[in-house]
C-alpha cells in the first residue's frame, strides 16, 4: 500500500496521525479519501505541494500513485 506522510501543520488536524497507508490509483482519489477522513484538511490541500515518489508537484491532479509509492505533502515553493 502507498505510504502517505503529513507535515506538522496537517498532523495538527489529523488528530496526531502523521502517516498512514492506503491503496488509491491516483492523487485525485487520495485527496477525496483525505477529505472524507479529515474534512478540515480540505483548505490546506489546495495550497500544498506534494512529492510522489520523489517528484514534486505544485498542482497534482491525476498523477499515478502505485502500491509502493511514497507521498509527502509540503509547503509550496515559488522562489524569486
Amino acid at each position, binding site marked *: 500500500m502507498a505510504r502517505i506522510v503529513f507535515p506538522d501543520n496537517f498532523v495538527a488536524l489529523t488528530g496526531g496521525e502523521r502517516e498512514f497507508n492506503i491503496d488509491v490509483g491516483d492523487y485525485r482519489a487520495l485527496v477525496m479519501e483525505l477529505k472524507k477522513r479529515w474534512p478540515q484538511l480540505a483548505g490546506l490541500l489546495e495550497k500544498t505541494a506534494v512529492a510522489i*515518489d520523489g*517528484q514534486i508537484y505544485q498542482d497534482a491532479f491525476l498523477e499515478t500513485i502505485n502500491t509502493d509509492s511514497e507521498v509527502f505533502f509540503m509547503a*509550496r515553493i*515559488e*522562489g*524569486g
Partner: protein
Amino acid sequence: MAEAVEYKQIGTSPIRPDGVDKVTGRAQFGADLVLPNMIHGQVLRSPHAHARIKSIDLSGAMAVDGVLAAICGDDFPSVEGGEIGGEGGGTVSDLAKNVMARDKALYHGHAVAAVAAVTAEIATAALDAIKVEYEPLPPVLDVISAMAEDSVLVDENNYTKLPEKPDNPSNIANVGTLARGDLDKGFAAADIVIEREYKVPMAHQGYIEPHACVANIDETGRGSVWCCTQGHFEFRSLTAKLLNKDLADLKFIASEIGGGFGGKTVVYLEPLAVMLSEMSGRPVKMTMTREEVFRATGPTSGTVARVKVGLTNDGKITAADSWIAFEAGAFEGAPHMPGIMSMYAPYDLENFKVEAFDVLVNKPKVAAYRAPGAPQTMHAFECALDEAAIALDMDPLDLRMVNAADEGTRAPYGPKFPPIGFKACLEAAKNHPNYTKPVPAGAGRGVAAGFWFNIGMQSSAEININENGTVMVIEGSPDIGGSRASMCLMAAETLGIEYDSVRAQVGDTESTGFCNVTGGSRTTFATGMAVVQACEDVIAECKKRAAMSWGVDDDQVEWQDGQVVPAPGVNADVTPMSLADLAGSAAKTGGPIQGRASVNAQGAGASFSINFTDIAVDPETGKTEVLSYTAIQDAGTAIHPAYVEGQMQGGAAQGIGWALNEEYIFDDDGVMENAGFLDYRIPVASDLPMIDTYIVEVPNPSHPYGVRGVGETPIVAPLAAVSNAVSRAVGKRICDLPLSPPNILAALDD
C-alpha cells in the same frame, strides 16, 4: 552519472540578442515609454513607521492647477481573502493594504495616497497639499522582542495560525517545523557539539532599475499597462484582483527589465497607475526613486537563528536542532518554510529538528529574493559545520563529503532525491586549482554549500515558421537572465537548424499563452520545455506536409537535421525538404506552419553548489579584501554556458555584498537611515576579484535536455563562505552579518 550528450547548438554561448540594445541605450525599460497626453503619478508616503490614519483630505491636492486625479485607500474596492503564491506572497487583502494603506500606516514609506498631474513636479508639489491626520504608535522593530507576549502589536487582528486559535493576538503570523528521528539519541552519540546564534540582516534585492510603469485606460475601463516585471500575467491578475476588474480588460506588456531577483514578482505602482489613468482619462506614468525602492518595496527577511549540531570525531553529523525567527515586515509572508526545508538539504541526516517563525514588524513587507529563506538558514548551519571542521581538524570539504546527500537520500522535507550533483560539486571543489593552492598569508579560506529546489509551473510557447524558413519563438517569460537566447538554442537544437535562424520574443498577455513568473529558476526549465514541445509540434506538421507533397503516408517520412527525408526503405525519388521549402509550399499544403504547446512542467531538478573564498582582514581597520572567489554549481545541462556563469557570478556578488556590508539601518522611530546606494553599500566591480566558476553537469532526467534551474542557488552559499573565511582569517568565530569594518572591529574587541 549519465553519459554526456553531444549537442550541436546547446552548450554554445552565442552573443546575447538583447546585448547591443542594452549597451547603446536603445532598450526600452519600464520608465522609457512616452505616450501622447501622458501625465505623471506620485505617491504620498507615511512619515511614521506605525500610525493609525484618522483622516485623509485630498481636496487640497485636487485644487492644485494641473492635478487631474488623486486617490487614497478609500477609493479602492474592498477585497477579501485569497492567497498569493510564492515566498513573501501573503494574501490578496494584505497586498491591497500594502499597495495603499487603509486604516494604519505600517512602515515608514507606506503608500497613503497618490496624485496624477501634467508634470511630475506638479504631482510632487501637490502631495504637500494632502492633509493626513495620523495617530503615531510605537513601532515594533526587533524580531525577538516582537515575539514577546507583551509586545506592541503590528496587527491587532493577527492570531498565530495554529490548530487551536490562541486566546490573544500576536506578532507571530505562522510557525513551521520539520523533524525526524530522535534528537536526544543523536546528541548522546556526538563527540562534539557546536551551539551558536547567528544574525543575518534584512537586505534588498538591489536591482539597478527602480519600479516603473505606464497605464493607459480608456473610458470603458479597458487598456494596457507597460511595466518592468518578472511576470506580466501575474501582474495583470493581481492588478485586476485589487481593483475588482476583469483581467480580460487589461493588457500587460513586459518591458526590458533591469533586474528583479524576486522583488518584481509583486505589484506596487501598477494598480495605482491604472486607477489614476481611469480617473483622469489620460495615460499615467509612475516611477519610483531609489529611496522609494528601499523604503517601500520588499527586502528579504532579516533573521535570528540558533543552531545546535552534534558530530562524531569522524565528522558524521549525529543530530541538528535549530530555531529561526524571520522578519516578515508589515504583513505575513516571510520565507520561513523554504528556509527550513533548505537548511539541511545537502546532508543525509537521521536526527534533526528545525522550527521557524514568520514575525510581523513595522518594516516594509518582505518579498522574494533569490532562493528566499535559504541564504539565511544555510548561513547558520554552514557556519556551524565550519566551526565543527576546525574543532575536528578536518578539511571542510571532507566533512561535507562524509555527510553528503546523494540520489536516494531522503531530503529533510520528505521525498528521496532523484539524481543530484552535490557530491560532484564537492569533488570538483577538492580538485580545483583555487582550492589546491595554499591559502595566502594573512587570509582565511571559507567553504560553504548551497541548495535550491527550483520549480516548474505553467508556461506556453508558440512557434511560427516564417516564409523563408526562419523560426519565430513567442513565449511569455520576461527575460531577466538571458532566456531568449536559451529558448533559441533549444529550438534550434530540436529543429536541427542553426541558432541564427531562430528569433525569440516575449509576447504580451494578449499575444501569447499564460506563463507563470520568471522566477523560481523555472524559465529555462519550464518555458524551455514548452518551446521544445512546440518545436516537436512543428516537426509533426512538417512531416505531414512533406508526406502530402510526396504522395506518401505520414509514417513514411522522418525529420533529420532540419529537413524532412523519406524513412529508410521508402522508395521515393524526392529531394529532402527544409523548413524554407516547406514554408514555400505551405499555401498549397494547408497554410502557415505553426506549433504550440502549454505545460505545467514537472520534475524540476534541485541545484546544489559549493563555494569557497580566500579573504584577508586588516586587523587595524576591519576592512576585508576578497582575494579570490570560486563558485561551483550543478546546472544539469548548461544551455548557454556564458549565461549560466553570469548567474553564478551575479548571485555570488549579491551574497558577498550581503555578507560584508548590506543591511537596513533603522533609527528608533523605524526610519531607514541608509536608503540609497551611497550608504546601502552593494559591491561594485572594483570591490571584487573575477569570480571563478565551474559548471557541473548532472543532467535532470525530467527535462528533454537535462536542464536544472540555476538562477537562485548562487546566492545561498556566499553568506557562509564569506563568514567562514573572515572568521578563520581573524581566528575568532564572528556569527553576525554584515561583516563590515566596524562590526569586525567590535567583534575583535569583544
